[in-house]
């Protein structure tokens, strides 16, 4: 046990060195724009852009270096007076569609966007259709005691 602890203490030494060099944050205080309206727009745009080196995180939530670069890029362009769409389009042209957390509504993504509504419509049609065509055939006959149990269950 003692040996392990000494080893651990050595690690502590290295750890302190490391500790002052790593970032834990997403948006850093020095990134924030002075104009709250522009900043709000920046946050909105950032939430829809994927951090390319992370796992399912927007650049707004990520603390990776690349995400920080993208956040700064978004803010630079906002200050220059570009619209949200112009900025997003520019980033897509640079990094590809992969960077969008919400895929564009288009032919190749049609199924993705429409599967819910289509399923709901078809499901309703099927449900209504089978409601109209209720069959009246009976089941395999049950023993009397089973029938009684079912009646008991249906009662309460």
């Amino acid at each position, binding site marked *: 046990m003692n040996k392990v602890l000494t080893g651990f203490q050595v690690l502590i030494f290295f750890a302190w060195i490391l500790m002052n060099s790593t970032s834990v944050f997403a948006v850093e205080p020095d990134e924030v724009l002075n104009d709250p309206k522009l900043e709000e727009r920046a946050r909105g745009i950032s939430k829809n852009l994927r951090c390319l080196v992370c796992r399912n995180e927007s650049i707004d939530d990520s603390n990776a270096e690349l995400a920080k670069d993208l956040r700064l890029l978004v803010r630079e362009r906002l200050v220059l007076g570009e619209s949200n769409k112009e900025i997003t389009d520019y980033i897509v042209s640079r990094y*590809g569609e992969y960077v969008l957390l919400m895929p564009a509504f288009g032919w190749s993504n049609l199924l993705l966007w429409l599967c819910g509504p289509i399923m709901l419509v078809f499901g309703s049609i099927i449900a209504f259709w089978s409601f109209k065509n209720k069959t009246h055939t009976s089941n395999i006959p049950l023993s009397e005691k089973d029938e009684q149990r079912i009646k008991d269950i249906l009662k309460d």
Partner: protein
Amino acid sequence: MIIELGHLALILAFSLSIVQLIVPMIGIKYKWSNLIRLSGPLASFQFLLTFISFGALMNAFITSDFSVKLVVENSHSLKPMLYKISGTWGNHEGSMLLWVLILTFFGFLVACFGSNLRTDFKARVLSVQSAIASCFFAFILFTSNPFERYSIAPLNGHDLNPLLQDPGLAFHPPFLYMGYVGLSMSFSFAIAALMEGRVDAIWARWVRPWALLAWTFLTIGIAMGSWWAYYELGWGGWWFWDPVENASFMPWLVSGALLHSAIVLEKREILKNWTILLAILAFSFSLIGTFIVRSGIITSVHAFATDPTRGVFILIIIFLATGGGLTLFAFRSKKITSKNTFSLVSRESALILNNLLLVVSAFVVFIGTLWPLFADLIFGKKLSVGAPFFDIAFTPFFIAIAIVLPVGASLAWKRGNLGRTMIALWPALILGISLGSIVWVMQTGGRMMAPVGVSLATWLICGSIGDVWSRTRGNTLRIKIKRLLGLHRSDFGKFMAHSGLGITIFGIAAITAWEIEDIRIIKTGESFDVGSYNFFFKGVTNSSEKNYLVTRGEFIVKNNDKLIGTMLPEKRYYPIARMWTTEASIDQGITRDLYLVIGEEQDDGGWSVRTYLKPFANWIWFGALFMAAGGILSISDRRLRFSVGTTRASKVSFNE
């Protein structure tokens, strides 16, 4: 030695599962009752052996036996005991062993308490259950053996991922697995019923508790995971639409549909085929969830390609279970017919709508989760589907569910009367709309989330109260209270589950719409305001704990000059795993959480600090717990207990 015994027990359990898969079925075919009767003891021994195997692995973790590869990779002698224990299932191999442990445990429960099931039906159920178990035993033994050993044991282990060293997450997987595996039980019942070609209210009465149990555990598991993300990941996000989260959310949605359709089947003997189909679907979704989590295919297609054995193995299991189940369904479902009818305005119709919406929303999550994979395989396009998509594509369906719910829940069976039902619901509707309007008028921003959420939550909670109250028909208050106390436990369960959903919806709407965020650099001795709260920064201290180092900031918090307390946000460094974690300091309250995170030290000696006011945050998880409590209350209902009154008599009749 103990490790080898555990390994041996696992192999024996695997063999028994194959025996159980085959022998009782032969018995049923040739009417050899001795073979059929083997099924109970086989299930019990399977559980016992798996239990021994799991115990052996846990023992290796507790005693830090570093001759076992899995322990080396996921544990460390300095780790607190709780995390040594939870380390058993905090990794791929161990979690799969936990999965089969629960699977065999449920089989054991049916073997022990299934006395009112017909013997050959029970044997069929246990055989199907064993078929699933044998697949997973094979999966563990051939692709992810937890008992692999090193010939020369290293001195210490690599430690468990520090993010996972947390009480909330230690017990998160067991709950989720109880949920996933609970759905395997309703799957087994469905397949056994298809084999026999008979589905009736007795069957539904058996399936409903399992669906309820699975749903309840999934609710708790998902809530725990979300709560963990909230306080551990450092910015108070509580749901990310991450593939791994979706993996547990899809079965939750479908099991919600299943337990409702099982109610319809039990009460009215209709929706038989649909309930069977849902049972197959629900389990398929839990298998798909396992596949997503275990193969790593969604997070990185590359990771899957380097070691495809596990992923391919689970794909084969999915193919067998879903494909086999659906094929059987296609052939046999025509045999199963319903005779009862109902009118378009009735509880039945409302529950069909509920089912439709739940299943469709589950498929939206499914398509969204797998779309990047489809797009890559079919169009060769790399794209992402993240939170913004799900927010838009999923939410409308759930809003629809919330709108329909109170009406459907209080409509009469068979033939309902909308006007009469609404008498009890008008107050809820009016209150909901007016509260929503007040919120809409009062808030300055244009976000619709808050007013809609407040309206829906009020409608759900007050609608549930109205429903319960309307069932206490009587002239005097005394009679009403007497009738109220006389209601079944499942009625209260229903009330709690439905109003719990309302509470959660309110929490989600509030935190999304009204959160306040503040990011700044602060020096020792300075203070700042967020909302009506004042934070005074006393400074930072460094210290070392058992297996990590910590930098701790100290803040004194006041609200309008009234002292709230001291908040101590931390950054931790785990040297063994070389990982950083943030420990946010959270001051919890009923109407708001104060959420404080300390970041990096600046060159000028200041510290970056993030502060959030998160209104009504706790309501999200409180609502979920309320739902789960409702589930438990329903399961405990006298009418759903496994051995009900007529058990003995009917057992005789079944064996004739």
